[in-house]
Each structure stands twice: as C-alpha cells, then as structure tokens.
C-alpha cells in the first residue's frame, strides 16, 4: 500500500524532528528538575530564538546558521533577566511549602505565571514582527544531499540534526564532569543541602534557565531557516516538548533525549498511516500509554 521509500523517508524525517523535540524537551526537563517549575513559556524561547536570528540575518545580511548561535545566547540572557524579574523571589516560597497542601496553589501560581509570560511574549512577537509567517532563507537549505537509496535531504536539516545531537552530548558531559554541572545536579536533588554546602542556588537557577532556553532558541533559529516563522510557533513546540518530558520521565535528561527521538520516529510512521492531520495525536497517544503503564516515564524520574 505504501512504498517502502516513503516510509523510510518519513521515519528519517521524524528522527530529525526528534532531535529538535529532544533539544527543547531537555531544557524543559532541566527547568523542572532543578527549579520544580513547569515552564509553559518554554516554547516562547524557541520562538524568540527564531525571530532574533531573523532580525540578525536581516540587519547583518548573514546566514541563519551563523547567526543562530549568537541569537540563542541573546535569548538566554533575556530568559535570565525574566527569571530574575518574575520567578527568583518565589522559588524559596515554593520550596518551603513542598509536601503540604499549600503546594498545589504555589505550583498553580507558577504555572499561571509561565502561562502569562507565554501570552505576553507571543503578543510581543506579533507586535514587533507581525502575524504573517516569515521565510528566512539559508544557503544550506538549497543544497540537497543525496543519500543512498533514493533519499534526499537538504543540508540544513542534516546540519540541524547533528548540531542538536552534539549540543545534547555536550550538555550531558557538562552536567557529568564540570563543577557547575555537578552543582546543578546537587541543587536538583536537594536544594537545601546544596545551599548548605556552599552552592549559590539562585545562581544555579539562572545558569539552568540560561542553558535550557539557549538550547530551545538554538533549535528555533535553525528550524526557522527550514520552516517559517510565526508568533505562535512556540506553542506547538512546547506541547510536544511536554509530551517528550512526560514520556521520558520528568527531570530525567537521558529519558527526554530518548523520548524525543521515539516521538519523532512514531510521528513519522503515524503520519504515513493515519494521514498528517492526525500526526499530533500520535504523541498524545504515546503519552497516555506511558502514563497508564509507566507513570514515572520510560526511564523513570531522574535526579
């Protein structure tokens, strides 16, 4: 019924998308693991990454793949400022009520704060860049690489995929080896004990925010060159990223990476069999199955 090459092509495409889901999901799971914050505004940093890249490309006349990392750093800085303005003073309150009845309201308060931030940032993009989707061209999108077996992908996609993979591996090593990485993991496990042993937890929160949003913005900048830019592009991604985080286990970094690829793969396959209009449902079906059989995620909750 379906040609073999179509299925393989969709799966490869799905896996490439999976790399992006993983990059955005990993940031989300880090913020959850370290700050206990369900960041519904996470997709907006992805969106800002794309628009910042566009602004840089527009004014400097360079390639999105060169300007992407630069704009991602800018988005990271913006997120740290927002973190200081909105959330910093509240983390302690949230920590103090953990386990008590008031925790539900504090948690809800955080979720609403991130939703408010998301609404605000989407409208900001709408005001600044307008509602019409913007296409950003890159030299890499026009170079088509032929793979054995009749498949061809643009160089942009392949570069994006490998950059996503590289930054995920770099992040993993950073958290495992460096002192700051260990401090982040210590704060995630027990903030009070981490503070007692001399870790400045507020600084750790800033660093975590910076790393997570930079990753999302990087993904946004590169994908912006492949697809197009529109103000609500972050909303579609954040939903997918949350699914990734739940499937992988909240706060579990490796789980999120694994889940990102799994969902990309399943979407590619699901798109072939059920039609692209139901593609989005595939991710939710996987999530429901995981919540049903393994509520703590495929790889369990991480530290």
């Amino acid at each position: 019924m379906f040609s073999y090459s179509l299925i393989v092509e969709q799966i490869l495409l799905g896996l490439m998308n999976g790399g992006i889901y993983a990059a955005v999901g990993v940031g989300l799971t880090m913020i959850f693991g370290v700050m206990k914050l369900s960041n519904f505004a996470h997709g907006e940093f992805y969106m800002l990454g794309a628009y910042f890249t566009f602004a840089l490309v527009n004014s400097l006349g360079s390639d999105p793949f060169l300007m992407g990392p630069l704009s991602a750093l800018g988005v990271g800085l913006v997120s740290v400022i927002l973190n200081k303005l909105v959330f910093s003073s509240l983390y302690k309150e949230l920590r103090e009520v953990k386990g008590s009845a008031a925790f539900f309201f504090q948690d809800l308060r955080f979720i609403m704060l991130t939703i408010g931030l998301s609404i605000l940032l989407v409208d900001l993009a709408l005001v600044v860049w307008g509602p019409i989707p913007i296409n950003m061209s890159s030299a890499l999108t026009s170079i088509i690489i032929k793979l054995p077996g009749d498949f061809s992908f643009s160089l942009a996609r392949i570069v994006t995929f490998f950059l996503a993979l590289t930054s995920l591996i770099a992040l993993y090593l950073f958290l495992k080896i460096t002192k700051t990485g260990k401090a982040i993991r210590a704060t995630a496990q027990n903030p009070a004990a981490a503070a007692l042993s001399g870790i400045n937890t507020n600084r750790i929160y800033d660093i975590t925010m910076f790393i997570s949003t930079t990753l999302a913005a990087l993904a946004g900048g590169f994908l912006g060159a492949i697809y197009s830019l529109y103000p609500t592009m972050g909303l579609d991604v954040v939903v997918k990223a949350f699914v990734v985080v739940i499937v992988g286990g909240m706060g579990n970094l490796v789980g999120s990476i694994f889940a990102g690829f799994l969902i990309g793969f399943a979407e590619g396959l699901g798109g072939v069999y059920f039609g692209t209009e139901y593609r989005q449902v595939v991710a939710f079906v996987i999530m429901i199955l995981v919540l049903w059989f393994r509520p703590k995620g495929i790889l369990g909750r991480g530290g």
Partner: protein
Amino acid sequence: MLGITRQTITKDGKYYILLFIALLPLPLAGDYVTHIAIMIMIYSVTSASLNILVGYTGRLSLGHAAFFAIGSYTSTLLSMNLALNPWLGIIVGGLLAALFGLVLGIPSLRLKGPYLAISTLGFGIIVQLLLINLDWLTRGPIGIPNIPPLPGGMIDLKIKSNFFYVALTVFILIIFLLGLLIKSRVGKILIAIREDEDAALSIGINVSLFKIFAFIVSTFFAGVSGGLYAHYLRYISPAMSALSESIHILSMTIIGGIGTTIGPLLGATLITILQEVLRPYLEYRYLIYGSLIIVVMKYFPSGMHALLQVIIKGVRK
C-alpha cells in the same frame, strides 16, 4: 444527608435573589451592555464549573474549553440535524460533556500537577482536531453559522434583552447550586481531597469516586454553558476548544480567586470587560492580558476575591 441545613439554603438563597433583583434592570442600559452582561454570565458558569475541579478538588485542567465545545456542538447538531428542542439539547450537551469528563477523569485519577495539566491539554487538542477533521459531522474548520435560537414560546429570544433574563435565571440557578454543593458534605470531601489526599483516604473517603464526581459535575456545567453560548451567539467553531480558550477560562477562575464562590464571577467580569475595553488596541490586547496574569499571580496570588475582602474590611472599619 448532604449536610446542608435549611438555614444555609435560605440564607444563601437570599443573596442570590438580591443579586437577581439587582441585575434585573440591566437591559435598560442598551444592547451593547446587555450583550457583555450575557457573555459575563455564560463565562461565569464555565469558570465556576472549572473552579469545582481546580479550586476545590485541586486538579489542574488545561482542557476545560473542550467540554464547553462538546456541549455547544452537541446541542447545535442535535437541534439542527434532528430538530431537537434546544433546551433539551443544552441538557444533552451537558450530559455528553460529562460523559467525556468521565472518560478523561478515570485515567487521570492518578495524575497530578503538570502531568494532569498536559493530559487535559492533550485532550483539548484532540477534541479540536476531531472538530476540524470530522467535517461530515462538524462541518470542519469554518464552524457552524445560523444555529437556531432558544425557543421561548411567545417571547422572541433572539432579542438580547429577552435572552438576558433567560441567561440570568440559568446563571443564578447554577451558581446557587454549585455554591450549595460546596457547602454540602460532598464539597467538604472535595476540599479534604485537595488539602491532603492520603489523609482523606485514611478516614475512609472513597477518593477516586469523589474525584470522578468532581470531573463529572465540572464538565457537565461546562457543557451546559457551551450550549447556552451556541444558542445565544448562534455561531460556533473548532477554535472554541483551543488551548487559548482553556487558558482564558482558567485565568478567569484564578484571577478571580480560586476555591471561592464568587471568585469565578469576579474573574469572568474583569476579563470579559477588560477584553472589551482593549478591543481598539487589538494588537496589544494579549500583551496587557499576559502582564495582568503575571502581576496578579506574583503579587496577589489569592486573586481579586482576597483583594475585595481586604477592601470590605477596610470599609467596615
């Protein structure tokens, strides 16, 4: 049996009758104000229904608009395709929404916080996708125009001031019932579950049963308000089930004052009026809306209800 005394009913009833009487002359202010008032009352019901789930039982939902949409589509399609009386259609719409609430509620029993939020969010997106893609039934993304109005016998309910009294009666009735529910033993059980699920379980409360009950009641009234909306505006579309709509309803509940009887009414009033006031600044509307949510949540996490209480106390002194 329910733990409500006759005194509570008459005492509460008095306030609701007073509110009813106070609002009676509102249509004199013209069609525009009447329209806004009707929208506020419909959204108050939706937001109060969400409050049962979020405010009293402690279950966060980001998909409440889906039940609103299910109620409105059911009632609309039944009245248009099967010529069912829209009054009956609204009830059936509520029941179908409650059935979906049951379907979502059972697997969600074990879920909490962000997990439940994402599951309900996913439910809302799936409902929206179905409304868009099952176009033989729902007429696809363009929505359904020319929905029959509510039949009122001799009274033409297409006229806003007439519809206002229907909406007012339904609104007062539902708010009164939900208020009584919370004051009853059932309401106290729901609050106990919110405060400490394990403790509630340890004193022999069937926690699962009451959580599902909260889901059913909440989604039923969301469906009813959806039906009312459909036969009032007479146009519905799949966008009604969008995440932004769920957030809209949730922010009414939370900004008004979560877990309070009048909070949802205050929130629905503030946000509906705010949206109207900001209509000329269409582009900046959500900028202000988002900032408002941030400011309220950061500095007044208990919402307008608590603010109102502070003011009332100040006046009494």
